[in-house]
């Protein structure tokens, strides 16, 4: 369990990432015991495997021309799965666009996500998910929303409620990142900021993004407790996020986690990473793959032999395909869908524009 002592030991100024298991999944400290039960660990592994399977299938749907641009999650799943366990029903989830497992854990359906990336706003309804904001594309612009939600939690005296807000490494250069951290700190808002540092902002490497020695250090100027974590270490992420949430809901204000990870895939399906990164770099990070490491832990500790994995993946694929088909069979995009959600009540001007277009469609001259 994280303590203030450990936080001091990992003060961002020391530029050391908090880590509990090694690249093979073996605990660094042999006396260390996870706070999760074997069942919970096994479930986390299955969730991670599910996220990876769904993600790979999403890329292949896109390659088949059945979906538009999609941002792959592969390599970053431990962050999402750990956060999914820590996040409670009443917590707010404020994401960018590469948080697949975190959305699923909050009750967003794959069908909705597929529908969104197929190009329909109906995919942002998130009908069964409570308190999940839609995908935010303009970088870092979602973070001030999180600080505002945090203010509302305090204002309404909501107990045991926090906001989980995500951003990427490139996002830490945006003004909104700094404004959001500052507002959240000044307001003692219960917001957990999670930087998914996957090393590249599309093609721009971290060293061209910032002169800072790491990204967690950016929180210190705002007097926000900050921790750099091995983002591919499921257990380290779980401990860091649990601690951050405990602190936030105890009225201690925001917390910043830099999750060091690697975007194994492309930025989106329209880019080619071989242009801006080396094979050595990819191989170095392949050793640290979060799925491999959690699997290593489970086998090492003999929690399960994982012999049914192929069967499991087969079942996942069937389910994922059916979700994708549901997205493909979603009702056609109507004229009403263009106009109907702009305002609570359709203003006369929009009604006029809509009528003129509908008359054209009907052949009325």
């Amino acid at each position, binding site marked *: 369990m994280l303590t203030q002592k450990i936080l001091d030991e990992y003060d961002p100024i020391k530029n050391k990432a908090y880590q509990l298991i090694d690249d093979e999944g073996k605990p660094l400290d042999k006396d260390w015991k996870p706070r999760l039960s074997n069942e919970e660990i096994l479930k986390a592994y299955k969730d991670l495997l599910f996220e990876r399977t769904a993600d790979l299938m999403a890329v292949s749907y896109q390659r088949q021309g059945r979906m538009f641009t999609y941002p792959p999650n592969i390599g970053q799943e431990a962050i999402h799965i750990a956060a999914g366990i820590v996040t409670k029903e009443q917590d*707010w989830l404020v994401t960018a666009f590469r948080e697949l497992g975190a959305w699923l854990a909050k009750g967003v359906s794959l069908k909705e996500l597929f529908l969104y990336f197929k190009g329909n*706003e*109906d995919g*942002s*309804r*998130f009908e069964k998910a409570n308190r999940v*904001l*839609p995908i*935010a594309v*303009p970088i870092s*612009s*979602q*973070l*001030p*929303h*999180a*600080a*505002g*939600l*945090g*203010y*509302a*939690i305090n*204002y*309404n005296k909501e107990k045991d409620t926090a906001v989980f807000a995500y951003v990427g490494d490139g996002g830490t250069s945006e*003004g*909104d990142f700094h*404004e*959001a951290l*500052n*507002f959240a700190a*000044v307001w003692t808002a219960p917001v957990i900021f999670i930087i998914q540092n996957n090393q590249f902002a599309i093609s721009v490497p971290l060293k061209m993004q910032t002169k800072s020695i790491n990204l967690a250090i950016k929180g210190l100027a705002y007097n926000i407790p900050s921790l750099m974590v091995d983002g591919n270490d499921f257990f380290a992420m779980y401990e860091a996020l649990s601690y951050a949430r405990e602190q936030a809901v105890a009225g201690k204000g925001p917390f910043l986690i830099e999750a060091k990870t690697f975007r194994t895939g492309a930025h989106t399906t329209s880019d080619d990473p071989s242009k801006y990164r080396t094979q050595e770099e990819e191989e170095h990070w392949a050793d640290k793959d979060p799925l491999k490491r959690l699997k290593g832990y489970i086998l090492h500790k003999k929690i399960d032999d994982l012999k049914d994995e192929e069967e499991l993946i087969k079942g996942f694929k069937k389910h994922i395909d059916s979700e994708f088909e549901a997205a493909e069979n979603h009702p056609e995009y109507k004229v009403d*869908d263009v106009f109907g*959600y*702009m*305002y*609570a*009540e359709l*203003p*006369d*001007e*929009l009604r*006029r524009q809509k009528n003129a277009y509908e008359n054209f469609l009907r052949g009325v001259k």
Partner: protein
Amino acid sequence: MKVMNLVQAINDALDIKLAEDKNVVVYGEDVGVEGGVFRVTEGLQVKHGVSRVFDSPLAESGIAGTALGMAIAGMKPVIEMQFDGFSYPAFNQIVSHIARFRNRTRGKFSVPLVIRIPYGGGINALEHHSESPEAYFGHTPGLKVVIPSTPYDAKGMLIAAIEDPDPVIFMEPKRIYRAIKQEVPQERYSIPLDKAKVLQAGEQLTIIAYGAMIREVQKAIVIAKQQGFSVELIDLRSIWPIDRETISQSVRKTGRVLVVTEAPQSYGPAAELISIVNEEAFLSLEAPPTRLTGFDTVIPLPLGEKHYMISPERIATEIERLVKY
């Protein structure tokens, strides 16, 4: 009834809504202890408490973005951009999120908030303190943009804006903040946000204006009357949506239209209004629909402002030219 200027009327509206609805909060730069640089929020913090009326960090994007967060959590933030020229850092939040959240989430999340922006020139201010950015906001789908020109309208329209289920940009003509006094009811009332108002009936020409320009046009109409011209004056009040009905009815009657705006000409509200006149009253026109606007220049610093600001004399000259066309 009580005699109030615009500042007092806006303060009164905020006071009423803060008292009525505990979800309403008012924040921005210097709005708390100081009561705002124009004293619009004076006394409200003492009366309603620091968690409801407060100073925020000096960051307009942060102010707007956090307000969105509060709004989707069920609160009703009324935020202030201290000056027109300082609303630009908040532009991305307004255009990319506040205006779009309802549509993006198919109505799951709405953003009922009000952004107050004191705007316009004529107050001998520093650079960036005299801008008329209404066209940017009027051009943005998902927003409502309104500008009152009287204390009575300011109070009723602000109450309506706070009660509106969608985001409203509430622009305040700072040049006439204290210039106009009027009897205003002390109780609550609201004024629809999508209706223009015929301030003066006339026969030969329709003038459409809003905000601080109304007063200048009224002075021009006095001159025009002496010359024997009959002018109808419409206070637009709503930049978006535009009240097509009131405008077209008037121009069909008068056959001539002059739009007066302080904002620069190109792609501005005047162009939009004249398009509407062309669509709705083309066959009634006796003269080319005309606009008298700010130049497509940066608004000059105070010593040069006299060249930029539209005087009653310039308006009167246009009235004469159009009526005699």
